[in-house]
């Protein structure tokens, strides 16, 4: 069944379809419609469970972790400052190996204040041990939440589904809502091997030795590495059932591409149009969308970028003192590439500024004309 809805409501629908019984949340623009919709469904009994209306995002995450350790599926949604406030608990969720799933609506981090799309909020959390997906539209956000539960509950690591402020969160599109029965079959009820049990008392998160800390961190890393395969498998299973799949990366018109544009999130949709025009003009430009950011899909990227000589990474974020974060990660993934590609970094869309097809075309042509490598990121500063 198709319905016209925002990205936020698509996320809320996914949470309902996953029968998540415990949600803890706190309002923040532009995530609040997720919280409101789920609260409405909880109040009217459409969603069977408990909505914890907490006094902060930090407490919301604390409650999700604790409930998850007790054995129930949990969800929260946040954005920007709220995600930053949660930071301590993001590390904690991963360290506790809880399959908490969260939607983060990517919004600029203050100061100065603003509400618009920017990926820096979630990218700043890249070292916290969360699986991270970046979604292009409401449909993908909905499907990614369902997939995120299935992945997280196999690897015991939390997952964050990112959708950009307004461009995805508030943009209305037709969204295909999967059948409840099919989702129930795809995502069985949560059954964790370990949870609080008064008949088998244990002390969780005791102080450990240095060696044990290192051991647990390593175990989590091994699990995180496995996500690359698990995510591909879950996406394939999802496609078999629901007819839609995304991959962990998506190569578009790459075969003969002299320049490959790399994007994440909603800029990808615009880039799909831009490369069509570029190809009509006779330029061999390809597009590569990165959907899974943590773990970073090094092997998949090395494979799809094999033989490519020029790569232009568009980053809707900037790590001060370094540059675009997707570009940093991609450069690291390709550092041993025999192709020695020139990787150019374009900072575009920061602060929610518009990245229209013309901007993307200019980026492609700029990369095409360059004959020397360039270490410094280039800022797109159109008014």
């Amino acid at each position: 069944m198709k319905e016209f809805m925002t990205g936020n409501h698509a996320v809320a629908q996914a949470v309902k379809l996953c029968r998540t019984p415990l949600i803890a949340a706190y309002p923040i623009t532009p995530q609040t419609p997720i919280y409101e919709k789920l609260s409405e469904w909880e109040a009217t009994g459409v969603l069977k469970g408990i909505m914890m209306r907490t006094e902060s995002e930090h407490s919301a995450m604390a409650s999700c972790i604790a409930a998850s350790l007790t054995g129930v599926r949990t969800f929260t949604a946040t954005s920007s400052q709220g995600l930053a406030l949660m930071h301590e608990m993001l590390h904690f969720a991963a360290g506790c190996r809880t399959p908490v799933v969260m939607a983060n609506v990517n919004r600029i981090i203050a100061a100065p204040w603003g509400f618009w799309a920017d990926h820096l909020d979630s990218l700043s959390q890249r070292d916290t041990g969360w699986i991270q997906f970046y979604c292009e539209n409401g449909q993908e956000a909905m499907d990614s939440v369902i997939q995120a539960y299935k992945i997280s509950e196999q690897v015991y690591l939390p997952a964050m589904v990112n959708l950009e402020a307004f461009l995805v969160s508030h943009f209305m599109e037709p969204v295909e809502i999967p059948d409840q029965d099919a989702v129930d079959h795809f995502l069985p009820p949560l059954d964790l091997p370990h949870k609080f049990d008064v008949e088998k008392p244990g002390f969780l998160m005791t102080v450990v030795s240095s060696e044990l800390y290192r051991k647990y961190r390593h175990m989590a890393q091994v699990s995180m590495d496995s996500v690359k395969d698990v995510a591909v498998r879950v996406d394939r299973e999802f496609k078999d059932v629901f007819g839609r799949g995304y991959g962990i990366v998506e190569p578009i018109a790459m075969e003969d591409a002299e320049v490959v544009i790399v994007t994440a999130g909603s800029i990808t949709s615009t880039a799909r149009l831009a490369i069509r025009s570029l190809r009509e003009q006779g330029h061999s430009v390809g597009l590569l969308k990165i959907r899974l950011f943590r773990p970073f899909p090094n092997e998949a990227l090395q494979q799809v970028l094999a033989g490519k000589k020029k790569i232009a990474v568009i980053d809707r974020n900037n790590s001060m003192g370094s540059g675009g974060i997707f570009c940093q990660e991609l450069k690291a993934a390709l550092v041993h590439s025999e192709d020695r590609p020139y990787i150019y970094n374009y900072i575009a869309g920061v602060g929610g500024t518009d990245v229209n097809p013309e901007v993307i075309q200019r980026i492609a042509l700029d990369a095409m004309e360059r004959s020397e490598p360039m270490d410094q990121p280039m800022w797109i500063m159109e008014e």
Partner: protein
Amino acid sequence: MVFQEQQPNFLRTGHAACAGCGLAAGMKLVFQAMGHKTIAVIVPSCEGSIGGVYPNTAYGVPTFHSAFEIAAPTAAGIANALKIQGKDEIQVVAFAGDGGTYDIGLAALSGVTKNNDDIIYVCLDNEAYMNTGIQVSSATPSYAWTGTTPEGNPRRKKNIMEIMAAHYNPYSATATIGFPRDLQQKIVKAKSIRGTKFIHLLVPCPTGWRTPSDLAPELSILAVETNVFPLYEVEDGRRYTLNHEPRSLPVQEYLLKQGRFKHLNEEQIRQVQMDVDEEWERLKQRAGRFASRK
């Protein structure tokens, strides 16, 4: 009646508390009254340290060492998950120190109490950050020496019971280890009430209060008998009940046994006595107003 002290002890031997620790005695009494169908939450504090280092632990019920400022929402998350699972017979108790309650955890505790989530929250109040050494918290009494108030604490102790009462939560009570039966009866009562229950448990700390290690029970009793720490309950934020008629001894009897107050001059002791008298009169008025409903 089955006396709670005859129930199994879920703070087992081998814990790592200092000699004569009032907090360990308090936790033991609470655990006994809770019984085995309990899940406990602790946070960074002396509870975190005394529980033991992996693979050993003194805690005999499922216990989760959560982060500092979130004892309440952690416990509430567990309690709500148990509710979803239909496990109504299991109760959740959160232990946090005075720093974790009065200071860094106050907003989180307030949020949970506002929602009336079904937990028992025990503030183990030893009146300073004792686990990190001895640093002032907003539970530290006037003039007390701490490592960060070397000239004595210039501010009065925050009134946490009034802050809780302002939430109209179903049950809050003060208790201390020198009155173990009173403490355990309050825990048993809290278990019978649904919603957020708050126990303000004064636990003398020989290390931080600069006293001999055998004084915690005596100081606990003196705190009550000097009116420094009256034993009372507040129900629904309105009904106050005094649980013990104190002897109203002069505050010196309590203060001068402790190294942290040894530098107090007469004027400061007089000021403490005035503050205690004022609080006690106010409390009596509140309790008296509802005396007939006892």
